[in-house]
């Protein structure tokens, strides 16, 4: 599992090199997101233009991807983000990273800019740069098929971009397979700027497991524990949609940008989807839960459309945030963003904002190419707007550079309603009543994002004696509480950093059930699969190193500090209008939020301005970065 290479590709010169990964570096950064961050920090010159040839795109497989690990399927893609100017990082499931490892590589470091479109062909230890002129203009469903036909192998896995990436939409995503997307921070835009249409991989090399019998035995032990749970059974049926009804009923969904926190119209619930559109489900590599729905629209305006998904997030971004109550429109919009390669989270957020401005009279039809953005017209205009953004057409071009730039262009105090952190659009939940969720989103190293730390179990009301066993310290069972929640976020940040570096799907962790694997289990898996003996404390230290390096990267590129670790002002001033009694009439208390921030920084070993202290850098060995070990 350890003997995989890093491939270095310069698209300007055509030069291709490779290196092995020293075990010392594995012990410092593992793989996946962690080692991607090391490579990015080391190979990117400070201040590089994200759309210039100097930006470095790093594609990485997790340390355990492709092995006998529940949910060991994840691929991480990093670069400097053209959307935020900060860390760009996105993570996706599917089959790409196991195939990359079977082809002999764990990480690809891509820089430069060719004169004409290209794609990479990675096969059994070899990397080739191939012409992609004939692929330019194809969508993300056509591109893999064309490459498989060209290379004569239907088992090739492809990571590619669509029209949004080609048109340099700042929140274009990267896609692999029918379903999987690396959406956040605009990595598809970076690929588009490099005229890199796709990366195709195929491998037949053995991935040697250090202690195969023990690894398999432990793998099945974990799989049984996961699959025997009620959570997994429900996940197998509803997928991540299972989270929609509880969060909506509780009142922590963001509706009409931030106008409401619950959808009273229940048209979008999962049971309707299962009854009318679901064709069953499928799974990513190494997953027994198979949460990926297959669906088809059987009649009406979008009759015949087929796809995979939707996720909980699809429903939030293309449903409640834009106040669309039509399942058909959600599915058709998902199909469209998938085809053109657009981050649906960012797209939903920016369209919800535009509709909010329209309904407040801040913009009108003169701004919107004559489109009526009334909330009640959402299902009519959603697809039109998505298409316009993907093609940079008219009003879509105003939105295509992201919400901060769009707010500057529109002016008229529109920025007050622009919901973002560090330039990345706000998550689809309304976190005003839940300080733990709010802190995680505010401090995330890639901007407004729940997947850096979300402690979903905080909403379960777990007793303190239980959380003490789960985390090693007591956490208040009250999700309205501020106390103890900074420690929870710090803990979850480290866990998710670890999980992303191992290449494991978070749905196989305590993200969704307190009985699922976490540090202890991964310490054992790492040993059985790789032979690396890393204790729980050592894993936390590695995760702390990786997370702090991300923080350093952001400071290096844009001087981000404490001022960048807050949610938008509306979260501290405007009360929620609906929900259960614990979420109704709630907004964040800024003084208490500041106390959480103080504690959070202290736990990381950062100063009160959010900058890593010198002694922290020394203790983590980061004072020597960039160290250029590879």
């Amino acid at each position, binding site marked *: 599992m350890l003997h995989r290479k890093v491939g270095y590709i310069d698209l300007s010169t055509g030069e291709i090199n490779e290196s092995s990964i020293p075990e010392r570096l594995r012990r410092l950064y593992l793989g996946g997101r962690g080692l991607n961050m090391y490579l990015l920090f080391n190979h990117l010159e400070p201040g590089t233009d994200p759309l210039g040839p100097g930006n470095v795109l790093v594609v990485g497989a997790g340390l355990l991807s492709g092995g006998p690990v529940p949910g060991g399927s994840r691929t991480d893609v990093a670069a400097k983000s053209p959307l935020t100017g900060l860390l760009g990082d996105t993570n996706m499931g599917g089959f790409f990273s196991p195939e990359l490892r079977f082809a002999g590589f764990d990480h690809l470091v891509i820089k430069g800019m060719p004169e004409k479109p290209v794609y990479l062909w990675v096969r059994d230890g070899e990397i080739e740069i191939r012409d992609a002129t004939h692929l330019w203009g194809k969508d993300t469903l056509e591109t893999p098929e064309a490459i498989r036909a060209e290379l004569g192998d239907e088992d090739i896995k492809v990571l590619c971009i669509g029209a949004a990436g080609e048109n340099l939409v700042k929140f274009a995503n990267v896609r692999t397979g029918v379903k999987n997307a690396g959406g956040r921070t605009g990595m598809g835009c970076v690929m588009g700027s490099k005229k890199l249409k796709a990366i195709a991989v195929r491998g037949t090399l053995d991935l040697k497991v250090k202690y195969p019998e023990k690894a398999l035995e432990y793998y099945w032990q974990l799989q049984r524990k996961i699959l025997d749970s*009620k959570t997994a*059974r*429900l996940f197998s*049926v*509803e997928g991540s949609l*299972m989270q929609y*009804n*509880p969060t*909506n*009923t*509780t009142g922590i969904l963001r509706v009409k940008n931030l106008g409401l926190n619950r959808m*009273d119209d*229940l048209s979008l*619930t*999962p*049971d309707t989807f*299962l009854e009318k559109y679901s064709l069953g489900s499928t799974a990513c590599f190494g997953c027994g839960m198979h949460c990926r729905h297959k669906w088809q629209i059987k009649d009406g305006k979008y009759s015949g459309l087929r796809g995979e998904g939707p996720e909980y997030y699809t429903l939030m971004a293309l449903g409640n945030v834009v106040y669309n109550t039509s399942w058909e429109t959600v599915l058709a919009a998902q199909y469209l963003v998938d085809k053109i390669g657009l981050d649906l989270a960012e797209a939903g957020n920016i369209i919800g904002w535009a509709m909010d401005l329209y309904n407040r009279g801040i913009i009108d039809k003169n701004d919107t190419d004559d489109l009526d953005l009334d909330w009640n017209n959402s299902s009519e205009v959603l697809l039109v707007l998505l298409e316009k953004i993907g093609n940079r057409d008219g009003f879509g071009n105003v939105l295509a550079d992201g919400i901060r730039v769009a707010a500057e262009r529109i002016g008229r105090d529109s920025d007050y309603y622009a919901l973002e952190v560090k330039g990345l659009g706000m998550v689809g939940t309304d976190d005003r009543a839940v300080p733990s969720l709010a802190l995680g989103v505010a401090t995330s190293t890639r901007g407004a994002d729940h997947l850096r730390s979300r402690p979903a179990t905080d909403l379960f*009301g777990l007793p303190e004696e239980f959380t003490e066993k789960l985390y090693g310290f007591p956490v208040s069972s009250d999700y309205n509480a501020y106390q103890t929640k900074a420690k929870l976020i710090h803990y979850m940040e480290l866990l998710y950093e670890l999980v992303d570096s191992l290449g494991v799907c978070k749905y196989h962790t305590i993200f969704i059930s307190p009985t699922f694997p976490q540090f202890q289990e991964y310490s054992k898996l790492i040993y059985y699969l790789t032979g690396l003996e890393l204790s729980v404390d050592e894993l936390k230290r590695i995760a702390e190193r990786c997370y702090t390096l991300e923080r350093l990267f952001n400071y290096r590129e844009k001087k981000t500090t404490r001022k960048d670790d807050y949610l938008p002002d509306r979260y501290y001033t405007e009360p929620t209008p609906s929900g*259960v*009694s*614990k979420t*109704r009439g709630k907004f964040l208390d800024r003084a208490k939020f500041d106390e959480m921030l103080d504690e959070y920084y202290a736990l990381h070993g950062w100063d009160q301005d959010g900058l890593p202290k010198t002694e922290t850098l020394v203790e983590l060995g980061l004072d020597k970065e960039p160290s250029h070990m590879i």
Partner: protein
Amino acid sequence: MSSAKSGPYKGTRGVEIRCLECLARIDVAPKAKEVECPNCGTTYLIYWPTPDIAKIKGVAQERLP
């Protein structure tokens, strides 16, 4: 509606859900479509993703304190 003729089921044997208002445990009768929390009185719409797992679909009637 649930199996009770006069209103939502309030029984003590069946599948369990958690009240999202007060976090009390609520027993749900098999195939029930609505259930009332015996602690706070909030009434929920119910659906069944599997025959033995009940889930809250939404609020039928709120009982805010």
